[in-house]
């Protein structure tokens, strides 16, 4: 499996994603420059976290027009896996690869560990988990409040496109467990074809005991399980 990780001006989690793929999965990874027009044969594309273009205008709004996004969108249309983490999720929503939008948090910038519950395992980034499994990993964002109209939210719920939800220690999606005011406590979704996945928490920062949690591993292992299936 070869994973291409796009570096936009202002990305800051691309090396963490590279570390996850190369050192933890033992797979090949390559950093892709946003101005290039070549995915270099990548099977999976990761849009990493960070503050592309300084979050100017809206988070992800300018990065989604970076040259390489033409190839990323074509890859997604061919059924290739695209994973958006934090700012990458914002970019994917702005590009229309994922439904909804990520607006400013209802309580400012948040950086803290959160618990998310796996809602669906029929994606390349959740396949190694189990439904109802609770995972701890950090968030670090000011604009992560998932927002969509009621019809879209109902469709996402009905089609199993809600992949991760913020929950409390007991696994319940309470208001108190919702770090940003996301509608229906949604932390991650996929597209209708299920090959584009986005989430606000950072699984690449929860891989080793030093990180305080190793729960991010199960999500990256999902990529491998899917590639070998």
């Amino acid at each position, binding site marked *: 499996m070869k994973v291409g990780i796009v570096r936009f001006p202002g990305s800051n989690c691309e090396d963490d994603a590279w570390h996850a793929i190369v050192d933890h999965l033992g797979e090949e990874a390559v950093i892709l420059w946003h101005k290039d027009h070549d995915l270099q044969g990548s099977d999976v594309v990761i849009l990493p976290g960070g503050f592309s273009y300084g979050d100017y205008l809206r988070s992800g709004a300018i990065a989604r027009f970076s040259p390489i996004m033409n190839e990323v969108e074509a890859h997604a249309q061919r059924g290739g896996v695209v994973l958006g983490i934090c700012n990458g999720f914002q970019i994917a929503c702005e590009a229309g690869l994922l439904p909804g939008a990520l607006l400013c948090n209802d309580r400012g910038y948040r950086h803290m560990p959160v618990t998310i519950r796996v809602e669906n395992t029929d994606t390349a980034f959740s396949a190694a988990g189990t439904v109802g499994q609770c995972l701890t990993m950090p968030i670090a964002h000011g604009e992560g409040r998932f*927002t*969509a109209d009621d019809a879209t939210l109902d469709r996402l719920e009905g089609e199993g496109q809600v992949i991760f939800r913020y929950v409390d220690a007991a696994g319940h999606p309470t208001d108190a467990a919702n770090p940003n005011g996301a509608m229906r406590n949604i932390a991650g979704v996929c597209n209708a074809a299920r090959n584009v996945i986005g989430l606000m928490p950072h699984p690449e920062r929860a891989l080793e005991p030093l990180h305080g949690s190793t729960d991010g591993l199960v999500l990256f292992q999902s990529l491998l399980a899917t590639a070998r299936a």
Partner: protein
Amino acid sequence: MTSYRVAVHVVPRRGILDPQGKAVTEALHSLGFAAVAEVHVGRHLVIQTAAADAAAAEASVRAMCAKLLANPVTEDFEIASVVAA
């Protein structure tokens, strides 16, 4: 072609939670402006662009809003003014 200065307001769509607007509303209330019902915080953009006439300048900026300047999922926009620059 003439140069036009087109001003646009981009605001959060009504009904979508606007934390900035809510915080400003509460601050105004605490300052004694009790009559304030609500505040919405958006963006004001001024675009200088060449166009055949004012209508073409406005149409061009509307296309910019649809593509980049406003998020169709969560924001509305209105052209505030179009003046020859």
